[in-house]
């Protein structure tokens, strides 16, 4: 439980302080509920609709997990291909950059139009959002090992594949995990955008319905659930990274 360390205590205290301040300001200024609810109201809404939120969360988790996994698979394939063939890289790389500038919220409705209202378009949106940071960091990691390492292995007569899995891949792992963390942070947002644009269940649906019913406390409950879910993914990836990178782990430990 690395994240439950003493050093986070001040942050936690600060967070509770902020919540308290929020509560006091709202109640003392009589801000109406539909404008900004108090933390206790939000907690109450969370508790009252916990079953509803839970069932919506399951949908979102399914979309996010599948989309994320697919993004990882595609990243591995395309980064691998681009690293093994510089020619293909030169062909595709500019599109990677440009694709990132295409506004997702404008394209998402089209995706839904083409792919229907099932899980598919949300999975696609999550995948698109996650694909870029993972691929970019993976390519960088696979390409940047010290050429001296590569030459050493070449001098030993290692095959391309051996060089890949002995040098390039372990060298790319830390960067890959950095990319995965970013992707995890954004993945839930991708699913919510997708659901917002058309779905029958999911946290995005819960969010829209609450907002259309002027239930601002539930809107905040939805925001809380989405944030918590994203953070959970982030924490999971962080723990996975610790396990997968023992040498980095030992390095950081030694130097502190």
């Amino acid at each position, binding site marked *: 439980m690395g994240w439950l360390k003493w050093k986070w205590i001040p942050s936690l205290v600060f967070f509770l302080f902020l919540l308290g301040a929020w509560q006091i300001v709202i109640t003392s200024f009589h801000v109406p509920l539909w404008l900004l609810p108090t933390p206790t109201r939000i907690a109450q809404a969370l508790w009252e609709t916990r079953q509803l939120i839970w069932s919506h969360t399951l949908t979102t988790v399914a979309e996010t997990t599948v989309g994320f996994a697919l993004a990882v698979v595609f990243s591995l394939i395309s980064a691998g291909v681009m690293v093994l063939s510089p020619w293909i890289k030169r062909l595709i790389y500019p599109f990677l950059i440009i694709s990132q500038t295409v506004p997702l919220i404008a394209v998402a409705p089209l995706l839904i139009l083409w792919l229907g209202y*099932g899980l598919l378009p949300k999975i696609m949106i999550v995948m698109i959002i996650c694909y870029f940071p993972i691929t970019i960091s993976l390519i960088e990691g696979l390409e940047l090992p010290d050429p001296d390492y590569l030459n050493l292995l070449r001098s030993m007569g290692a095959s391309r594949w051996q060089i890949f899995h002995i040098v390039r891949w372990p060298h790319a792992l830390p960067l890959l995990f950095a990319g995965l963390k970013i992707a995890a942070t954004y993945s839930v947002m991708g699913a919510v955008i997708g659901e917002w*644009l*058309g779905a029958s269940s999911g946290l995005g*649906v819960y969010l*829209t319905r609450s907002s*259309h*019913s*002027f239930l601002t406390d539930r809107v905040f409950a939805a925001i809380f659930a989405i944030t918590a879910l994203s953070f959970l993914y982030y924490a999971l990836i962080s723990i996975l990274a610790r396990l997968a990178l023992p040498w980095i782990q030992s390095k950081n430990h030694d130097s502190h």
Partner: protein
Amino acid sequence: STSPTPATTKPPTVVNLMLDWTPNTNHTGLFVAQEKGYFAREGLEVKFIQPSSSGNVEQLVAVGKADFGVSHQEQVTTARANDVPILSLAAIIQHNTSGFVSPTSKNILRAKDFEGKTYGGWGLPSEDAILKALMQKENADFSKLKMINIGESDQLTSLTKDIDLTWIFYGWTGKEAELRNQTLNMMWLKDVDPALDFYTPVVITNEKMIQSQPELTRQFMQAVSEGYQYAIKNPTEAAEILIKNAPEANPDLIRSSQAWLSPRYQADAAQWGIQKSEVWERYAKWLVERNLLPKMIDPSKAYTNEFLPEANS
């Protein structure tokens, strides 16, 4: 009654008007009032703001970020039941011109046929209730209708693909279907239940506005009212005014939509914009009976005709 004040003597009062959607023929009268100088004559400078479909006009008007807005009786009712202090000043269209549509090829003629079908909606709480009521009347099983939320997507294209029926404003989406030669079966909401012949859309403002600046409200409504009257009398010219103000929209759609909608603004009412208490009461009761409102609202606080100009003007 209001006496026109020359714009040259006083600087115009700036007024923010928030639409409910992309500029469309529901808004024609507003743009006419702008173009023809009715607002200016009343000493007003009106700024138009447009949200997306999931916008929160009601809250924005309630907090005064917008002075006036375009909304719908359903939203106003739900908002008031949640203590959001807004009210309706005029019904833009006298009768509900919305309804459920399905492609003719699917042969959905009655609510009984909804079973096993997919409905693509806006994510409004009232949708479930309306469809449920509709189907119960014909002893159909509501649980067999699949509900999905289609938000921003093109409803007509969705009808050809993933969904079987949806809820449209005939004056806009129905007209587009005609342009596309897409034939639809339409089930008018007003025919389902008299309670559902509610006002959609309406002009709204917040309670503070009518209390603190009744004169401004009256001036604003005077101009708006004249704008719609012009649009009723001159559909072709009004359409061109809207086209000028909504250059992003499809002019053909606007023209055909305007021709269809102009006679329906006022319809059988004595004056454009008039609202009846029973319409507000009926609909709110209908919702309360179905547990869709946290509490019954006071209809007399949800709307007012007070700021409409005298009938003879």
